[in-house]
């Protein structure tokens, strides 16, 4: 227990007496069950407060560890219920020796008890997985009132050491931590490496070797455009240099050796293929000597032959199912399909590397270059291309060759070469590589109705955002456009066609549309917004004080060119002035030019740069976006002659 700052203020004798009485009736730990004794600075803006969390990891051998957890958490509301973490996973190699929980009301009186048999036992299959052999016991508790406090104990015996629990004393947004302790006792005789990150600025003391304690960490509120929570909050991770993964011994001095182990032990023996498919692929690729061209053929072959199905059994969480099996059944998970593609490429003499990575579109997360351990949640394939790499997503049946924008772009990944592992960065798409170019011709009649034909070409990240339109049914496609162009009331979609050029990675949409009364009529004037098809109206949220630095994780570029035509009965009364805004966050410009007495051209260009910025710059970024929102709705005025 840290010294309680409130106690130190009791200076006069009567208060001291009071203090002693307190001590007698409430031991220090008992204080932790009482919600009203949480210091004010920890209970401000929280869903939950971790009162006390103690993780002890006792490693007795390279393949054995005992993890003991004690956790006391006070929960303030329904969202906080999700932070209970009163569960334990188990399978062949993980045994739950003890699991129990106690619930206390807001004054710290025990109101409920849960023994092992009271926990719900369920399969731990996650969405998208056909089958997994791992299971979970979790607490299913309906709170009677808030706040309440939950005490949870678990003791898990691991016969595998590949995943040593990490320590994150500050767990998530809107959650404060009063006390959190973590200790590893390593009696295995095997060297343990560890890494502490982001400890500076947080109240963490070192109690001994591999023994830390954090106290009184106030909650952090979420703010838009914040970097990943884990990237600025404390974390401690550890790994054995010789470990056991589901009965298989692994080596992990560094990424090079860890990669070599993966290659030799997990991958090498899974790449055998039947003669027939080898011959088939050889025949298909015989016409060219270009390895990239050959790889394209193989990628297409795999896309046509397979689909994504995930089955996780035993070491199958890390070892791919054999290429032979994928070839036979025509499905596999990311590991199986990547490995199958690699095996095929190997047979025709094209080098490629199995690659471990964190997949995710919203969360861009790196494999830690400086700390080798079991990391990552996804596997892709890396194809060396002179000084650079081409990255292949093998779980998609439709993805163009080499496109990774959106799910695995711009992050550190572990590539497994036969000689060992290496951490490299995947492709980051520059704004001009994630381009959306919209061209339109718009015809107005004298009452403000319009007919238009629009062409949208997208590449890179913007390609990946839009190409799914193609496979939807017509009703849904129309609805997509009506939502995308929600700024046009009475919108009617008259026809849609697509061209998906997977070689150039360019998606072209052609849309014919019409809308009644687009221009609003006031007297003899028609008022209309020339930016019809690409309006940015959202402005990042305002915070009276911004606490966190911010980042724009992907850049992109939009170009728009619309020609607007009017009947001779109308003439232009007023046009908005051209605008150019140039900031470190990006640039925005638009102009309207008269092409003819009843024809104008609207041009717009908006580039958003990727970048990380200090919190003090957030208001500037908002200002930039406010200006864009303002200028995107700039109007022009026509009037009847």
């Amino acid at each position: 227990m840290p010294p309680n700052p409130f106690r130190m203020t009791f200076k006069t004798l009567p208060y001291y007496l009071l203090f002693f009485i307190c001590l007698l009736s409430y031991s220090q730990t008992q204080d932790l069950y009482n919600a009203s004794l949480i210091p004010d600075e920890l209970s401000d803006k929280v869903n939950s407060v971790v009162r006390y969390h103690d993780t002890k990891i006792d490693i007795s051998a390279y393949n054995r560890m005992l993890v003991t957890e004690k956790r006391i958490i006070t929960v303030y509301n329904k969202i906080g219920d999700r932070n209970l973490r009163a569960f334990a996973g188990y399978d062949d190699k993980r045994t739950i020796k003890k699991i129990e929980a106690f619930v206390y009301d807001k004054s710290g009186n025990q109101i409920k008890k849960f023994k092992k048999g009271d926990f719900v036992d369920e399969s731990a299959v996650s969405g998208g997985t056909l089958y997994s052999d791992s299971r979970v016991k979790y607490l299913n508790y309906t709170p009677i009132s808030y706040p309440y406090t939950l005490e949870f104990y678990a003791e898990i015996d691991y016969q595998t050491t590949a995943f040593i629990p990490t320590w994150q004393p500050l767990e998530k947004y809107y959650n404060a931590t009063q006390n959190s302790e973590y200790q590893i006792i390593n009696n295995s005789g095997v060297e343990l490496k560890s890494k502490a990150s982001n400890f500076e600025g947080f109240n963490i003391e070192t109690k001994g070797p591999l023994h830390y304690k954090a106290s009184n960490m106030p909650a952090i509120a979420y703010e838009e455009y914040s970097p990943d929570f884990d990237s600025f909050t404390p974390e401690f991770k550890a790994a054995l240099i010789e470990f056991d993964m589901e009965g298989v011994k692994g080596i992990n001095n560094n990424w090079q050796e860890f990669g070599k182990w993966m290659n030799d032990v997990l991958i090498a023996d899974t790449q055998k293929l039947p003669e027939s498919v080898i011959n088939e692929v050889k025949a298909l690729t015989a016409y060219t000597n270009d390895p990239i061209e050959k790889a394209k053929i193989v990628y297409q072959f795999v896309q046509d032959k397979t689909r994504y199905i995930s089955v996780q059994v035993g070491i199958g969480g890390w070892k791919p199912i054999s290429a032979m099996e994928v070839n036979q059944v025509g499905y596999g998970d990311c590991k199986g399909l990547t490995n199958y593609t690699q095996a095929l490429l190997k047979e025709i003499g094209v080098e490629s590397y199995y690659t471990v990575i964190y997949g995710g579109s919203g969360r861009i997360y790196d494999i830690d270059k400086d700390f080798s351990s079991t990391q990552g949640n996804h596997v892709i394939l890396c194809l060396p291309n002179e000084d650079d790499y081409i990255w292949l997503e093998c779980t998609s049946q439709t993805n163009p060759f080499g496109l990774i924008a959106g799910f695995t772009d711009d992050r550190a990944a572990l590539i497994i070469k036969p000689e060992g592992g290496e951490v490299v960065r995947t492709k980051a798409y520059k704004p001009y590589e994630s381009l959306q170019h919209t061209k339109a011709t718009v015809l107005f009649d004298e009452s403000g109705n319009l007919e238009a034909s629009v062409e949208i070409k997208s590449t890179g990240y913007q390609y990946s955002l839009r190409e799914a339109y193609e496979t939807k049914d017509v009703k849904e496609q129309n609805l997509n456009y009506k939502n995308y162009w929600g700024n046009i009331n009475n919108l009617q979609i008259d026809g849609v066609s697509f061209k998906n050029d997977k070689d150039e990675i360019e998606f072209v949409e052609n849309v014919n549309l019409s809308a009644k009364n687009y221009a609003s009529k006031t007297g003899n004037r028609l008022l209309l917004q020339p930016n019809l098809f690409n309006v940015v109206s959202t402005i990042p949220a305002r915070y009276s004080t911004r606490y966190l630095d911010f980042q724009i994780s992907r850049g992109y570029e939009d170009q728009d060119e619309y020609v607007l035509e009017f009947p001779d009965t109308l003439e232009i009364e007023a046009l908005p002035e051209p605008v150019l805004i140039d900031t470190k966050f990006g640039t925005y410009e638009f102009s309207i030019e008269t092409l003819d007495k009843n024809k104008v051209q609207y041009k717009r260009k908006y580039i958003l740069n990727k970048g990380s910025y200090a919190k003090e710059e957030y208001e500037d970024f908002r200002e930039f976006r406010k200006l864009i929102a303002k200028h995107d709705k700039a109007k022009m005025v026509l009037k009847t002659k």
Partner: protein
Amino acid sequence: MKSIILTLLLVFNLTLTAQNFKYGKVSDVEVIEKAHPLEPNANAAVLYKSEKIYFVYTSDGFNQMREVHERIKIYNKEGFDWATKRIVLYRGGGGSNEILKKVQGETYNIEGGKISKDKLTKQAIFEEDVNDFIRVSTFTMPNIKEGTVIEYAYTIESPFLAIDDVILQYEVPINQLEVAIATPEYYRYNKTFNPKAQFYPVIKESQENKSATLVSSSGPTTSINAPKNASRNYSQSQGTYIDYRIEINETNIPALKDEELISSLDNYRAKLGMELTAIQQSGGGFKTFSTTWEKVCENIYQAPSFGEQIKRSNFYSSDIEPIVGSISDPFTKAFILQNFVRSKVKWNGLYGFTSPKGIRNAYKEGAGNIADINLLLISMLQSSNVNAYPVLVSTRNHGVPLFPTQNGFNYVICMVETDEGYALFDASENFTSFNVLPPRAINWQGRVLKPDGSSHWVNLIPNKPSIQSTSLNVTLNDDFSAEGVVRKRYTDYLAFDYRNKYAFSSDDDHITKLESGNGSIEISELNFENAKDVTKPVDVSYKYELQDAVENIGDNVYLQPMLFTAMKESPFKSDTRLYPIDFTYPVSEKYIINIMLPEGYEVEILPQSEALTFKDEACIFKYISKVNGKYLQLNISLDINTTVIGTTDYTEFKAFFEKIVEKQNEQVVLKKV
């Protein structure tokens, strides 16, 4: 001539092979087909589905068998999911579980002009216990490509009498459907069809004599979910009995299409329900469960987990006496006890109209299902001499109870009746109140059960509109920014929604959410009254500043007078509608807007006052504008008096909303004096 005959023969031959639905007889034509002939956009199609349900007599009594055989065509990659099958098996405890048997499957592809076949292997079939009640068996077929035909068959052997719904419609078309159900005369089932479905099958009914060595039992079997062989004495005899048969033979059942703004696609799926209504007793005669609404309700009321529960009062009487003892008004009592129950027993997320462990247990544990909570409320009210009755409800995602079945209901609420009228209560959630139920429970009508055994329907759809009224004061500054005060009031369901959204938010978060999507607005001095007091409407007020409120183009100033309170776009975008739109409750929105004009400007053009109506004033929109010296005043309202918009009225309704958006976004033109 020869070639014509050959062609004819070929066509004839093709037609023949395409019609062979015997297991394993997949034809070239089926594998070659590129698109569905009737629904060319279909990603897959069920070429054939057969489901046979029958009972076989064994030494344990009758066992239910369900034989399923499906042949599915996969046209493209979006259809690949149809190659994975998930079969749910119920576990009854005590070893009486459903068992999956005789699983077989094959994948058919064309390779090098010939049909190739891949078998589903045993290793590719996974079984797992999802929880204590359900085991799931999953398999996915090998070698799926665009064009693949798969075929699989399996049998579920069940010790239970309850028959699962027979699904008659999928999200892809079914070309040929055969259903055959045979039930022995000892068990009577009532068949029901989904009234909201757009497809109805033709049913053929018949009887068939069967013979078996029968065991007659001397103990009654009354529970539907208990295995029928539980603790009885048997005597054997060779006997005959009658099977009641139901057959469905249909072709070309259209795909079930999804649509936005519906509660659950399942509500519109064609399906056949078989509810057990009676079991023959050992002494002859039937124990009936449900045949008429009166009978259904009587049975429910008599169930120990329902009517009996309401009668218990000793465990709480001393707790409620101090809080309602001195109160005489029944509605006030109901109000107080609703709050009391809410504070004592929390909803565990489960529906149900019966209390599985008893309301006393729920009261002690502090948590329970819907029945625990609302039966407790009813019980407390009855024991306080209030006329309170249970109302059985089918929730919005559970379809409409058109046929007299117990399965038609899944929820119960409370009704309080006096000479002046009645009110509905539900204590399972925060912020419900007098006639404000959780929206899930507002589905057509509910069945009121009276202690004397009688029952009748009560309308659940609120008559009274929920009101949102807004007063917006605007001062236009010289720099064309605007500032002022907004006052909003929400009643009934709109108050319920608002409280659920914001009652537990900090002011900062509340402001951030109010600002979101409203351009360069800054909100301050937020005041949120009656956030938790459900006896009063929600009152919210705040100050705002809005940059770029108006546009200055040339010599004129253009202004959309509703500012950020206008509807920005119509929520109804689809050209057509497959299913009705259900607003759940009537709504009335009112806006009073007062704009002080900037110095040196006057109104040149004002949007005209106008009224729009939809369908004999089922919905009314009014827009009244006037200039009053330095002030521009608007009075705008939208009343949605109906809760359901039918599909035939949709086009008109969509146009009505588009006109509202158009009108709300009309501009006022100001000019310099």
